[in-house]
């Protein structure tokens, strides 16, 4: 728009990162941008890249030329990339985050004994906790990220973050899970015998009675049993949470925040960038997606469009110039369509002046794609844009 075009090669800029975390509010194109980034890295660098998505939507699979993305990593056939004119130097792999098996593996890894792991996995409450625990998906994404990174099978791990309601859910996830497993509440419940405890703790007795009446007897007891098992995981989980934070703060990691210029997602991006700074996590780049063409802000265009929309004689004039009959609808719609987009572009322009507030990092602007990104060719186009290729002064 008004600032000079800065053709940053985002891929070059992120070349030294082994982990790229792509974040931003829902619907800004995180998943597609992660996939395109993966494609660009694999095309230009001799690396094995894995794109880990949390979005089960089939569309990404189609865009990558896969029938579906499963939880087992799938390699994108290099022949398909070559057909698009790319000469991939590396390898591109995609996988979907498998919540259930990541949880299961976590339990198996940290349970003190195999027997204890088995009991936890078989408990009816286990399923519920793994599904409903706040930030569970966030933490599992990190757990998987950590595993993939330490497995050394891939040179670069790109992950798009879950659509969190709040940026904090993501950044707080490691703390939250260790608080949860080791929390005072669980300590309290995990005392050797809840029944014995009931008898001695006069103050809490009425509450336990209520819980019994609410849930039916035994339910609380069973839950306490479960909680006792989970306690055994504590030291392992806590240690891992610390390692995850260390990794996310290290020079190996780069956060990329994706946003559009719409007020609401932009506001969330601003908030997220502030939080990244607070958590000492390295923001490396900002991608502004779906930028409207600068032509929409051209004052001469606005004048012409207004004439088209409002001038009653303009249809006749058009007819004379073009040598055909033109109904008044034609200029009115043409002018109206331009002015509608002009108003949108104006609203978005307000955010442009606030871009520098996100952080002193390169900003890549991607034009609003004319079509949805629905095949490899469209994804390759996006990958080229991320490298600063083929972008006009947008």
């Amino acid at each position, binding site marked *: 728009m008004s600032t000079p075009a800065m053709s940053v090669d985002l891929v070059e800029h992120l070349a030294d990162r082994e982990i790229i975390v792509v974040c931003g509010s829902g619907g800004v194109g995180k998943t597609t941008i992660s996939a395109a980034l993966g494609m660009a890295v694999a095309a230009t660098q001799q690396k094995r890249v894995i794109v880990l998505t949390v979005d089960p939507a089939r*569309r990404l699979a189609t865009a990558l030329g896969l029938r579906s993305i499963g939880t087992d990593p799938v390699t994108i056939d290099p022949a398909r990339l070559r057909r698009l004119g790319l000469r991939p130097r590396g390898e591109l792999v995609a996988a979907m985050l498998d919540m259930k098996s990541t949880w299961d593996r976590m339990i198996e890894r940290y349970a003190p004994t195999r027997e204890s792991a088995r009991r936890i996995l078989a408990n009816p409450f286990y399923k519920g906790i793994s599904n409903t625990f706040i930030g569970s998906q966030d933490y599992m994404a990190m757990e998987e990220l950590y595993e993939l990174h330490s497995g050394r099978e891939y040179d670069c791990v790109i992950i798009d973050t879950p659509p969190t309601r709040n940026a904090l859910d993501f950044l707080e996830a490691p703390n939250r899970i260790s608080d949860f497993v080791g929390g005072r509440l669980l300590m309290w419940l995990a005392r050797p015998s809840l029944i014995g405890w009931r008898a001695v703790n006069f103050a809490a007795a009425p509450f336990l009675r209520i819980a019994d009446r609410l849930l039916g007897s035994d339910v609380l007891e069973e839950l306490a049993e479960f909680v006792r098992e989970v306690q055994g995981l504590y030291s392992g989980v806590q240690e891992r949470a610390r390692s995850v934070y260390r990794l996310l703060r290290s020079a190996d990691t780069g956060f990329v925040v994706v946003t559009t210029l719409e007020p609401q*997602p932009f506001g969330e991006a601003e908030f997220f960038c502030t939080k990244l700074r607070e958590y000492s996590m390295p923001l490396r780049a900002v991608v502004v997606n779906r930028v409207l063409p600068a032509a929409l802000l051209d004052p001469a265009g606005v*004048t012409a469009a207004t004439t088209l929309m409002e001038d009653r004689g303009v249809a006749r004039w058009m007819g004379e110039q073009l040598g055909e009959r033109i109904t008044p609808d034609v200029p009115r*719609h043409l002018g109206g369509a331009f002015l509608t987009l002009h108003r949108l572009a104006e609203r978005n322009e307000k955010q442009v002046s606030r871009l520098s507030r996100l952080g002193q990092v390169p900003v890549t602007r991607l034009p609003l794609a004319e079509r949805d990104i629905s095949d490899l060719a469209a994804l390759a186009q996006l990958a080229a844009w991320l490298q600063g290729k083929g972008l006009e002064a947008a």
Partner: protein
Amino acid sequence: MLGELLSRRVVFVAGKGGSGKTTISAALALLAARAGRRVLCIEVDAKGDLSRSLGSPPVGFTPRVVQPNISVLALHPEESLQEYLRLYFKVPRITRLTPLARVFDFVATGVPGAKDMLIVGKIAYEAKRSGSDGPMWDLIIVDSTATGHVVPQLGAPRAMRELTRGGIIRSQTEWIDALLTDQRRTLMTICALPEEMPVVEALELAERVRGEANVTIGACFLNCTFPVSITPRYVAMLNRLADSKLAGVSAERLGGDVASVVQGVRLAQQLYDRSQQYARRLRSAMNAPVVEITLEAGARPGLSATRAVAARIGEASR
């Protein structure tokens, strides 16, 4: 379609984040209130946007009147539990009594679906609540949780029943489940945007709502469709005015350069085309009325934007 929705007791408004749930909820509330119904709007993922769309500052857990015949409340599971305990166990407000707060934490994190149950339970409670003459509210509109979480939420009563043996909750879950799955009393509406992912997700959500939660879909709102119809033929005409032979004359007649307008109009044509295409796709696959709500370019969320959307819904269902 509108009459169908407004004659129910509970209408859920669901859809992906950013798909316009809040504005649609607020617009439906305006329409219902105008038809003389006493409306309660419930904001589930409370950010205060729903009350703002109805021209009021954010509200709390106690319903507050924001427009004639419209009240709004922001739902928090913890307060919902406190209210529940107060009503059924005569437990006083417990903010200071830590043991119960702990029990809440424990139950909420430990028991699958407990938080969802407290949300759905509160909605059902408000539906059942009676005032001085008859029910307190004629219609409850729920601005639901973003993404697909609304499905497990609606299924919470059943999930709860499987885990509890006896207990008061068991019998209570039964009538709540009956209310939600009765299409004469409860309907779901789904919001979408004219883009690939939101449309796919809306269709998937509809399938899950019907299949897993057993709730009937009353309507689908396709938000932000491009408002001006533009055909490739229109664009071609303008393009001819911009080509080298006519550019000078055109610029003079129109008072400005046509090239920029051509660029903008090309994009507009694609957006219009996409809107049409996704509307057709939803119509053929949604199995429920599809209402297109055009993009209000530059409109800020607020009462006037809500009124405009309400007017469109009104027109569409005539």
